[in-house]
């Protein structure tokens, strides 16, 4: 593959360069909030990348993907609570637990189709939510504070914010590479064929169920990793990490960025989370000269803008950010 200087490739390059250089900027400017925000963005981008593998490439519309965030997070939190701080135990445990959960849920859910699939994945995520809210030993509804981040051997130290950011970024890039290899392999061809036309796939001789199940498990496991990172980042884990609106946020990131594209979910995560941070300020900034005090008040209601915006993206910008960039690239060519 030869990289061409299309707007799309430039945008991907700029995005990656910005993510790599970000700690330099926050270190110089002392803007620690920005580093925290972007660590969060990178972690959730990893979750969105995992959802994109099954939703964008595999056509499996899971409305309960945040469950794996919770399972990965709780694996870390519970082990830490029980005095096992080693990351070499915590992280494999987080991966194994989410893989196992995904295997069971996927095996049952993939029997259904369409809306029923959306709803059954949603039901399992809600169950996971309520189970975690019901365990008194691990904080129930209030959640669990993690006093010590996962421990690895020196010089790895997750409490160092810059180092932690780079670890998250490296894992995100590794996940994108993994997805890239997967979707272009024979396995990936089967997954995409099943998204496109499942009946036909079975007619020409593919038992699609088992391939989709593997895809489901890989996606769940990757999201579990993201959950383990998120728990470390927040030093805290609670059931709200897997509330259904969080599953909705992940879907928004994938669609906003561009379904079934490698870097789309990253664009989507950055756009959504930065937008959420900026919109209130933006309303205040633009509105105050015109409407004065009223605008300051209105900035609290930024979701009133966010909602219709989402509707507009769905109606008029189907391909998401990646789709727009691709269009630009074509016009240039």
């Amino acid at each position, binding site marked *: 593959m030869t990289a061409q200087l299309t707007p799309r490739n430039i945008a991907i390059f700029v995005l990656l360069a910005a993510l790599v250089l970000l700690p330099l900027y926050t270190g110089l400017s002392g803007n620690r909030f920005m580093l925290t925000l972007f660590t969060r963005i990178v972690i959730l981008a990893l979750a969105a990348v995992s959802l994109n593998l099954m939703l964008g490439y595999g056509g499996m519309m899971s409305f309960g993907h945040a469950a794996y965030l919770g399972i990965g997070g709780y694996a870390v939190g519970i082990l830490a609570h029980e005095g096992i701080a080693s990351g070499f135990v915590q992280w494999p445990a987080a991966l194994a637990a989410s893989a196992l959960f995904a295997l069971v849920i996927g095996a049952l859910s993939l029997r259904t189709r369409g809306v029923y699939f959306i709803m059954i994945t949603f039901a399992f995520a809600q169950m996971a939510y309520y189970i975690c809210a019901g365990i008194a030993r691990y904080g129930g509804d209030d959640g669990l504070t993690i006093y010590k981040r996962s421990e690895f051997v020196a010089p790895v130290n997750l409490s160092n914010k810059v180092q932690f950011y780079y670890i998250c970024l490296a894992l995100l890039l590794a996940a994108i590479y993994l997805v890239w*290899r*997967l979707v*272009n*392999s*024979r*396995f*990936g*061809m*089967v997954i*995409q*064929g099943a998204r*496109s*036309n499942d*009946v*036909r*796939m*079975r*007619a*020409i*001789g*593919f*038992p699609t169920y088992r*391939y989709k199940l*593997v895809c489901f498990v890989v996606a769940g496991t990757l999201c579990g990793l993201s959950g383990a990172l998120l728990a470390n980042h927040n030093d805290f884990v609670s059931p709200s990490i897997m509330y259904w609106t969080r599953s909705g946020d992940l879907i928004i990131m994938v669609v906003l960025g561009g379904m079934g594209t490698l870097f789309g979910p990253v664009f989507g995560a950055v756009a959504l989370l930065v937008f959420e941070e900026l919109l209130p300020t933006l309303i205040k900034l633009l509105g105050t000269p015109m409407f004065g005090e009223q605008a300051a008040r209105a900035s609290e209601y930024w979701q009133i803008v966010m909602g219709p915006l989402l509707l507009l993206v769905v109606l008029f910008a189907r391909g998401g950010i990646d789709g727009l960039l691709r269009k630009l690239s074509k016009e240039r060519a």
Partner: protein
Amino acid sequence: MSEPLLTVDHLGKRFGGIVATDDLSLSVAPGELHAVIGPNGAGKTTLIAQLSGQLTPDTGRIHFAGSDITTLPMYRRSALGLARSFQITSLFLDLSVLDNVALAVQAHAGHSFRFWRDARSEPELRDPARAALTRAGLRDRAELPASLLSHGEHRQLELAMALAGSPRMLLLDEPMAGLGPEESARMVEMLRALKGELTILLVEHDMEAVFALADRITVLVYGSAIASGNPAEIRANAAVREAYLGEAEATHV
């Protein structure tokens, strides 16, 4: 005569009160092109669906190449060498034409739990796929998305996909449906070229094509076979003339 490749014994299928297949028996010899005709609603598509494994019959047995396949799932039948084309074009529209055929090749190349190597650069998949496309007359279209092909080209792609798995037998569900006269003629030529090399069960409305191609013809009415024989016998059969051909000719003329 040699052992039949496909045998259908006393097949029956109902949907609620409607009898779609009624005690139907037929057999197809190796190398034969066997056509199934009948008026609308005679149960032709239901028959193909049961042969390919999309539907399970209520009663009766289906044997293919010596084994009982009555309850086998679609992919197992396909692995035995029974390939099917769809009446309503059923392709992977968002993939490229070559990807469509390569998937059909891949289906017969062992399991697909191979996660790392780039499938689009594997000659084991791509070369047979290109060969099948060439046979179906679509070599120049290989890199286009399947959604951009014309209706006739979709039919050719269907055929290429069926061929790609090197099947022993093809189940063709109305390959001429919706084709213009020119495209139809091209399809007849392609089928004639395949005949003899492959065993074919052809369900078709286009009488001209059926009588030009078929070695044997079975006539379905209300789910049961009212006649079976070579084209000349079917033409001469009084019951067929009355139940079907007469009516069809009357509407054609």
